[in-house]
């Protein structure tokens, strides 16, 4: 299949694939088994220029967009979405700065994020606030030239490993959704600490921790944009980052399929390779159809979003929900194709199946994505004058 990528885009894919094959695939099982953060791989990625794909050249990036970033993420995810999540989460942490920060803040943070020198993280979720962002309890109170943060963030990807955190906190509770604001918090800021590292079903190479703010004092100029912009910044960030989650799904599905097809061609039962049985062929065919459909969706929506259209929430949500559902289905089927071997840790598909589940949960559950799509449809059709009956 040819998606008519540019020379540069093909190069990105080729380089990410090389890193995935040579540096991630050999260590993924060990990273998973030992809950080990993949610093060695992330250093290779930093040297490769891939961290800055979507960041403008003026800030040390490669000046590409969402599609370029997705091409890299997909290939990394083909080997391990634990590693790919650690990589992609830095982008999630960077987007509030890239989209809304002032020039000084951009100059201060983006070049280090683009070069992979400093890892970023995005902190919104709390024990009482996930899908429902209005439940955020963390507060930021202005005190002269400082803000003082108090509260706890939960399940923060790259927590403890990242140096730069984009943190959502309430600056004026009375204003509801318009009372939230984004702040840049650095590792080492006074009153900023990390809780325990979570034990997870999958993506064990990625670090998930609590962030604890206890009278955390940060300079006033760490506020991103203006007070009250927090909710908008979060939504615009998710619009940009969701195709990346779709790309994780495409990569995982492709990785699971690669193994399932290769295995089915080699494994013999009843005197012939099991790929000759229609029961297996149809499974593989369905896996291939869904994976390609998911890829086509991610690429075309990413391309569209890179043309900077005004309203992208609906397509961005589609770009997350479909490929991640596909990843889950394909991973389950890959285990089934491998049978007993698939269930064992000797083959990588059991890990892929465990890993895939998070894709349907994080960065907005797939239920929330469907809510967004449904609400957008309602608005879209409400604006239409014509009838289709």
């Amino acid at each position, binding site marked *: 299949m040819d998606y008519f990528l540019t020379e540069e885009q093909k190069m990105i894919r080729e380089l990410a694939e090389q890193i995935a094959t040579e540096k991630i695939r050999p260590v993924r099982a060990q990273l998973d088994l030992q809950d080990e953060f993949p610093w060695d791989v992330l250093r*290779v990625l930093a040297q*490769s220029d891939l961290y800055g794909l979507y960041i403008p050249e003026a800030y040390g990036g*490669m000046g590409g967009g969402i599609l370029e970033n997705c091409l890299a993420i997909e290939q990394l995810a083909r080997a391990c979405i634990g590693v790919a999540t650690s990589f992609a989460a830095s982008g999630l942490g960077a987007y509030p700065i890239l989209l809304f920060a002032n020039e000084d803040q951009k100059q201060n943070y983006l070049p280090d994020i683009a070069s992979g020198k400093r890892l970023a993280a995005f902190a919104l979720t709390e024990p009482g606030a996930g899908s429902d962002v209005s439940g955020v309890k963390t507060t930021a109170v202005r005190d002269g030239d400082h803000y003082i943060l108090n509260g706890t963030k939960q399940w923060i990807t790259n927590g403890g490993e990242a140096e730069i955190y984009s943190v959502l906190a309430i600056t004026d509770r009375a204003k509801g959704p318009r009372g939230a604001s984004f702040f840049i918090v650095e590792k080492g800021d006074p009153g900023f600490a990390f809780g325990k590292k979570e034990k997870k079903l999958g993506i064990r190479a990625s670090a998930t921790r609590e962030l604890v703010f206890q009278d955390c004092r940060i300079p006033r100029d760490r506020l991103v944009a203006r007070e009250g912009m927090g909710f908008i910044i979060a939504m615009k960030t998710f619009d940009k980052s969701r195709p990346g989650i779709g790309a994780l799904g495409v990569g995982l599905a492709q990785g699971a399929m690669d193994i399932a097809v290769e295995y089915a061609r080699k494994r013999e039962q009843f005197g012939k390779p099991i790929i000759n049985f229609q029961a297996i062929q149809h499974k593989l065919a369905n896996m291939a159809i869904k994976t390609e459909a998911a890829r086509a969706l991610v690429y075309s929506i990413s391309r569209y979003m890179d043309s900077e259209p005004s309203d992208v929430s609906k397509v961005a949500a589609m770009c997350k929900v479909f490929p991640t559902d596909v990843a889950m289905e394909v991973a389950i089927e890959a285990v089934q194709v491998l049978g007993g071997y698939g269930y064992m840790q000797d083959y990588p598909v059991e890990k892929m199946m465990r890993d895939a589940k998070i894709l349907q949960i994080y960065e907005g559950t797939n239920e929330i994505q469907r809510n967004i799509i449904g609400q957008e449809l309602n608005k879209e059709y409400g604006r239409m004058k014509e009838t289709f009956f």
Partner: protein
Amino acid sequence: MNIAVCIKQVPDAKNVRIDPDTHTLVRQGVESIVNPFDLFAVEAALKIKDEFGAHITVLTMGPPQADEALREVLSRGVDDALLLSDRAFAGSDTWATSTTLSTAIRKLGKVDLILCGKQAIDGDTAQVGPEMATLLDIPYATFVKRIEIADENHLKVTRQTDEGMEIWKLPMPALITVIKEVGEPRLPSLRHKMRAKKAQIPVWGVNDLGLDPGAVGLAGSYTQVVRVFSPSRRGDRVLIHGTIEEQVDQLYRYLKEAKVPGI
């Protein structure tokens, strides 16, 4: 500091087949790679560049498609590339190759350090490095695992030999062939890859080097491949298990059965 790295494009050993009739390597349709040991030489050069700053030129002698090997190395961060390609170079043995490469290096101007892999995985001679140094009349060290800058004019190198390690001090310019312990080759970066793709790589032929066509290629080679054959199969091997006493007993029996003189 100016560094020249000599590389060779070789068939990918993972997919090599031997023609059963001619006993020669089947090169058609076999993917080419940069000789793995040469990538260690590239890494050694890049490490020196990272630490002290250097200008690195990579060169190879080969057919026009050896251009790919040069681009592969450019994508890892080498500054310049040079291809030595001419019909007259075809059929070169190690002497003719060394003549061509050393002439090109002389033409490059001031070169402080020449790096090569310890040997190529196809020919496996390990001769070209030392021959070049001899032709250039500069000191050389082979099988080097560590390179340090001793002072402005000297290198301190650690050689790995069968007997152990040797530490040498070499005046520059010098030639060094490296082994894999020198450091794992880094992967390409996107910026270097893009630069490598667009790079205009100069091609020098026999006339550019001012060489006599009779001194290079097959004509300038002292050795010629008369025949290539697979070595005959070695005798049967047996692995002996058990306690030391049992093993000695068994060994004695085997030797006796084999009618080894003196048993």
